[in-house]
């Protein structure tokens, strides 16, 4: 039996999760919500995380019904992400690892998303679409690496949605992407650019569904191409944008046409959370990895394919 606690706070969410051999024992999380029209800045986000992280840690232990002594390994996000929030979380992880005399383990955030998706859905060897505020990647596993088959040339799909939401002052609570999804449902499906003027009123929900349709079509297309290339019959969608039901629906249609199977999760596990770091940490720890304190520095850049996947055949 191996119990791993995971700390995540690389962007505006902060979470602590506990995994015991594939079972999520607890996974509390908070989100730093900024006013409509405003993004989140590193130092403000770090301040938010500092103010709540110890409360969340206590919640995670209490909810799991565990004492620190029961934990086998302390995992935390090493990167990629924003510097100041990453440092905040790493400081607490390093300190409790020493106080409790447990090994420490630095985890790649992207690997966390993938391993959490695999755990929850039981997808065997999927083509992975990783879509979030900071990343847009099509990934497939081969020879001890998660290899990136395609990615965005400029900004991430979630960042695109978030920026647009900021311009038209859509609420950031719980996330811009979620609110766009709700408003887009109200707009009818468009093929052409919706230009909606009624008398002296205008309507924007049509343009939101247009944006979703366009972005998601592009994502489905690159995923399908990667599947064909790898001869894969499984797709797994991970990352915050992955909880979008319209994206799941569109990907589902493509999969059905190819006789493939689609796997996805809901916001508990798609959106950044502590359990995903615990789960990737669990796999890494079981395969013999640990991080020495002096090597536990955080890094804002850390590509998915830099990590040697020591836990898969």
């Amino acid at each position, binding site marked *: 039996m191996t119990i791993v606690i995971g700390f995540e706070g690389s962007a505006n969410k902060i979470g602590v999760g506990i995994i015991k051999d594939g079972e999520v024992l607890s996974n509390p999380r908070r989100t730093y919500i900024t006013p409509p029209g405003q993004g989140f800045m590193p130092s403000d986000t*770090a*301040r938010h995380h*500092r103010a709540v*992280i*110890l409360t969340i*840690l*206590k919640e995670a232990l209490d909810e799991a019904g565990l004492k*620190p*002594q029961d934990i086998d390994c302390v995992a935390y996000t090493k990167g990629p992400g924003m*510097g*100041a929030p990453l*440092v*905040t979380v*790493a*400081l*607490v992880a*390093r*300190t*409790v690892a*020493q*106080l*409790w005399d447990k090994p420490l383990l630095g985890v790649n955030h992207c690997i966390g998303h993938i391993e959490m998706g695999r755990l929850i859905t039981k997808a065997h060897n999927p083509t992975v679409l990783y879509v979030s505020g900071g990343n847009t990647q099509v990934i497939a596993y081969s020879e001890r690496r998660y290899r990136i088959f395609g990615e965005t040339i400029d900004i991430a799909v979630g960042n695109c949605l978030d920026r647009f939401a900021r311009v038209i002052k859509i609420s950031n609570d719980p996330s811009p992407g979620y609110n766009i999804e709700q408003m887009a449902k109200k707009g009818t499906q468009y093929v052409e650019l919706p230009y909606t003027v009624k008398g002296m009123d205008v309507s924007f929900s049509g343009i939101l569904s247009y944006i979703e349709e366009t972005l998601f079509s592009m994502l489905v297309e690159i995923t399908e191409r990667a599947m064909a290339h790898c001869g894969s019959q499984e797709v797994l969608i991970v990352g915050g944008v992955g909880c979008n039901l319209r994206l799941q629906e569109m990907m589902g249609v493509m999969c059905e046409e190819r006789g493939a199977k689609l796997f996805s999760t809901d916001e508990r596990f798609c959106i950044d959370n502590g359990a995903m770091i615990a789960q990737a940490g669990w796999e890494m720890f079981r395969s013999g990895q640990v991080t020495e*304190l*002096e*090597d*536990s*520095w*955080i890094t804002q850049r850390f590509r998915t394919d830099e990590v040697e996947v020591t836990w898969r055949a």
Partner: protein
Amino acid sequence: SSLDVPFPSSREALIALRSLSPDKEPRKGGISKEITVKDNTLSRWSADEARILRVSVNSFMDHLLLVLETMEMFSLPVSQ
């Protein structure tokens, strides 16, 4: 200049040292800081000009406080 922080014991001072040391200063060029422990006192040394020093000391204090709070809430009870 140096900033000294006394801890209840050298064990705690060393834990703080190991938690605070791994990350490099984010700002390029400027800061040259060093953290050391002697007995139960943690010291932060720096030879930089006041303007950038203030920013660096502020963030050091934020980090130190978080480590102290973590120790306060999550130290294991001392076994008899």
